[in-house]
């Protein structure tokens, strides 16, 4: 809040009106709808519906496909976040050190931010195409018997690889600017005291990057939860047998393709609760734990 403020009756309402209007129509209304529909059960033709209290939630929570998808989502998100953060931190540390070609490396490593997730998914799909994909052939020529179309683990590997590839650039941008924010004098003093670059990294640089890392962890988890929809939809489509369907992908499949409105809405509401908890956790817990 500003110390000095305007006191005016109509003007602030005029300024905030467009945003509130759009939020009411395209956010509050659909969100309320989702909650309402999650308590309804529609017949097969969508002609009538009845109020069934928490039955949709019971059905969702007790269905093995939802639990399976929830487990996959958690494993997938954690792996994507950890792998892409590690990889980009590694690259950012090196990119921060080089003098020659520093700008070119930065450009080469950050441009991927602009790639749409479904485009990344298609590129991955192409590399793993059994007809002509280079990676598919390479893995099989090493004798892995790689088959992501039938094997759930292989399919998971493909989706994770694509998701990591897409996310490296974002993490890289944040780590590099975090590293450049560390005063040169601190690094020079550390170099005098300790010759090992690796120990310097763990004792000086990494603790200074802790806030960035925690922030990126949250960003990456949200990314893996929601934005990987495009990647999954064009690479595995959740196959084999729903083994690579995240919760968000399942909401879409059940709601639009399966036309199970009540069940899909119940899943939406469950997701809303999960995301809200994550956000509160982010604000309450992480902000306090990290020393700036």
């Amino acid at each position, binding site marked *: 809040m500003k110390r*000095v403020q305007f006191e005016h009756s109509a003007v*602030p309402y005029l300024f905030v009106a467009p*945003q509130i209007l759009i*939020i009411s129509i395209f956010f509050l209304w659909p969100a309320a709808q989702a909650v309402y529909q999650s308590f309804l059960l529609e017949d097969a033709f969508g002609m009538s519906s009845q109020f069934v209290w928490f039955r949709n939630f019971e059905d969702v929570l007790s269905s093995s496909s939802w639990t399976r998808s929830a487990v996959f989502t958690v494993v997938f998100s954690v792996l994507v976040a950890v792998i892409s953060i590690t990889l980009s931190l590694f690259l950012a540390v090196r990119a921060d050190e080089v003098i020659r070609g520093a700008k070119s490396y930065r450009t080469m490593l950050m441009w991927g931010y602009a790639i749409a997730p479904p485009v990344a998914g298609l590129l991955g799909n192409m590399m793993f195409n059994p007809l002509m994909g280079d990676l598919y*052939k390479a893995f099989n020529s090493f004798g892995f018997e790689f088959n992501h179309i039938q094997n759930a683990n292989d399919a998971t590997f493909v989706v994770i690889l694509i998701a990591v590839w897409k996310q490296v650039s974002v993490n890289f941008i944040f780590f590099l600017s975090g590293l450049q924010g560390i005063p040169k004098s601190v690094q020079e003093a550390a170099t005098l005291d300790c010759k090992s670059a690796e120990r310097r990294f763990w004792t000086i640089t990494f603790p200074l990057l802790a806030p960035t890392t925690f922030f990126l962890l949250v960003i990456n988890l949200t990314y893996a939860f929601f934005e990987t929809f495009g990647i999954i939809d064009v690479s595995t489509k959740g196959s084999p047998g729903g083994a690579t369907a995240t919760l968000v992908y399942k909401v879409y499949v059940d709601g639009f393709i399966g036309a199970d409105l009540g069940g899909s809405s119940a899943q939406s509401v469950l997701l809303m609760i999960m995301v809200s908890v994550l956000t509160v956790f982010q604000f309450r817990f992480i902000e306090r734990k990290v020393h700036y």
Partner: protein
Amino acid sequence: MYQSKWRIFTNHTILILGSLFMIMPVWIAFASSTHTREFIFQNGLQFWPGGHMIENYGAILFDPSATKGRVTALEMLFNSMVLGLGFAIGKVIISMMAAYAIVYFRFKLAVPLFWVIFSTLLLPLEVRIVPSYEVVANLGLLNSYTGLILPLIASATGTFFFRQFYRSVPDELLEAARLDGAGPIRFFIDILVPLSVTMIAAIFIIMFVVGWNQYLWPLLMTTDDQLYTIVIGIKQVYNSLYEGGQIPQFPKAFALTVMATIPPVLVVVIFQRMFIKGLVETEK
């Protein structure tokens, strides 16, 4: 700072490998898009460009049959441009105004309205996708630019960014402006907006890329080919690759992929410094 020869050598090796990791998939797509479909079908993906670039790209840009529908890639690019620009412009204007009201005014509903705006951060569009679709359908906005853009604007990321920025603007500016007799609207237009120019540019670039890359929402919204954005167009082309028992049109699908990637990548690379600044500041 002292660096050993070995460290310098490994630094470059690692960075070159990292860059190759990022670039190879797109390069292979580009190289493969410049061959005939028979050649790709027989020989697999290519690392080196062939001689059919103009032919393939020309076909997809201007001939609707090459993209398996009634629209050419040129029209899809136009739709993507409308979505990217419309989303970025709408988002910047609406969130600047809302943030101004929240930061600079004392009014009754300030706190509840702030929480309403904040709540949009909790529930991304993906989570409430089915009811959002129904609402837009009820309003008769399916297959329209309005229906495509407005629901995407209903999240408050931009508002928080401008709120953060306004709070860093010195209070003295407002005091001085008031002494000179400037009202709230005059202060906004003549002082605050000119002050925010770099920030506006940065957030505009980010939002353009975000808008251009939208997938799930346009996929549901646009059943009419005429409104396909290029990202959606690619999916349709890939889906119909194996139809009709002919040799799959891989080169043209790759060409479309490359074309979808070029505009946002160019924007990000050209405005790199501004873009990074915006991204890093926004998230703080």
